[in-house]
């Protein structure tokens, strides 16, 4: 098994190139901003309901702070920033020609892909783990429903795993990192909003579109609803994208 050396190499490259630092920096700054705004809003609502206790019945810190926070992480940050982490995985190797050496080392194509995928997934996990600071802070001031929070994080990890796999696939299609990022963002955005057509279409096809939509599946986790169909959706998307990436690398070998 040669996954480990590939994984280490990718991590080393992420550590020496600026892109990962830039993504982390932007992510954390924007996250901080979101969190403080959402929290402010919640604090104001709490204050108002202190004057009028009947309003306070529906106040729930998990529901009002963590759920929108998960929503923001997934849409704006994961969707917009992950393409920048995955774009280099294969496109850069192809651009610089290093793929020619990598693919002539005694390592199977799927080991290369898995090593790269796990590296970027590891990076993503670290990034998401840094946001644990927010629920921990909340827990200090309020009673948090940890089950729901954990389910939200599980959702983020599953969603991230599928997005990163799509990114890896897009990176296998081209020698240009920019093109890879554009493809990734385009595919993910379409998958995100594809459910919007469900109502007008209706019927079976409407249901299909709704099931294809990542947005549809993501919110359930944030609400604390664990459903096998949501889990399977992300797992299937991940496996499909990884499989396509594998075939794409194989096809490129034949083209030379």
């Amino acid at each position, binding site marked *: 098994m040669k996954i480990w050396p590939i994984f280490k190499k990718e991590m080393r490259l992420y550590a020496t190139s600026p892109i990962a630092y830039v993504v982390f920096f932007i992510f954390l700054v924007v996250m901080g901003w979101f969190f403080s705004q959402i929290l402010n809003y919640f604090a104001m609502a709490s204050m108002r309901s202190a004057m009028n206790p009947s309003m306070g019945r529906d106040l729930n810190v998990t529901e009002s702070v963590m759920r929108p926070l998960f929503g923001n992480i997934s849409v704006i940050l994961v969707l917009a920033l992950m393409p920048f982490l995955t774009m280099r995985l294969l496109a850069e190797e192809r651009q610089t*020609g290093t793929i020619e050496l990598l693919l002539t080392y005694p390592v199977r194509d799927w080991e290369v892909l898995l090593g790269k995928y796990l590296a970027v997934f590891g990076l993503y996990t670290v990034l998401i783990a840094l946001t644990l600071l927010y629920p921990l802070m909340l827990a200090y001031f309020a009673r948090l429903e940890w089950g729901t929070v954990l389910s939200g994080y599980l959702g983020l990890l599953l969603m991230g795993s599928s997005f990163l796999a799509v990114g890896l696939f897009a990176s296998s299609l081209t020698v240009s990192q920019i093109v890879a990022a554009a493809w990734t963002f385009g595919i993910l955005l379409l998958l995100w909003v594809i459910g919007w057509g469900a109502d007008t279409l209706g019927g079976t096809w409407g249901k299909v579109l709704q099931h294809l939509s990542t947005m549809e599946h993501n919110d359930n986790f944030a609400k604390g609803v664990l459903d096998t169909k949501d889990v399977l959706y992300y797992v299937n998307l991940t496996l499909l994208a990884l499989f396509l990436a594998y075939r794409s690398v194989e096809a490129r*070998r034949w083209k030379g």
Partner: protein
Amino acid sequence: MIEVERLTKHYGPVTAIKDVSFSVAPGQIVGFLGPNGAGKSTTMRILSCFMPASSGSARVAGHDVFRESLEVRRRIGYLPENVPLYTEMRVGPYLEFVAEVKGVSRSDRRRRVADVMDRCRVDDVQNRLIGTLSKGYRQRVGLAQAIVSDPEVLILDEPTIGLDPRQITEIRSLIKSLAGQHTVILSTHILPEVSMVCSGVIIINKGAVVAQGPIDSLVDQFFPTARVEVEIVGPPPAVRDRIRGISGVLSVEDQMVANGAARYVVEAARGRDVRAEIFKLAAQQQWDLLELRRVGMTLEEVFIRIVAGEEGGEAGAAAAEAGA
């Protein structure tokens, strides 16, 4: 160690190589020669398992490059033409990565890496980013990654391109030192390099092998004559006729005349040394003999003759086709 049979590769409608066959014996260093675009890199990419051939087969270190690709890849070291390295990695960690991927055991890894860094003389830059290294150092790092797992077969695509003369000499002696334990196939279009480093040569032109074998036998094969150059002061027509009269002489050509002296190129049958007879002839005729020497054929002449001959042949064929 390397057996290639009727290897063909198409890129879409373009045929890069066609029916290429050759073999390399264990422990040999063989030069793979050809003009640019002849198919050298394509052949090497197939041998290194980077891409499959369209048809034909190749066995490297006893395994088929297509069916047992992993087995082949465990036994080769490959240096592609443009030396693609991870510019954002440092030399030491990079070589350790390569050693690990190539399956050098954990206990040997540090020693192997130190050893190749020493052999390729990159130990003084082991903490530098590869991207900041000069071309010569990069080339040596590339060679180091090829030999770090001590492979049976080395496939080197233009290993000395872009280096300064001193670096070229260093790399050559390094490659030469690999003979015996390693089988090396190296491509180049620098002809003297082949005579200096290699024991055998394979010449490829327009995607097909046009000649192969030990360098001496190739020279014999393409120049089946012994050549002597003479400079004589004497009347050129008479000199020419008398020399032609010597038995075994096939042709005499006078090249240039200055101050009454003329230079003649004498071609005699192979194995026939006509120098003594020319000397006696000059003495007898009282011509002044200024110079008399045997001229060796170089690989360069063989190469040019083969490649030019090919081209002439093709042009002729094309003309014939156009005529029909």
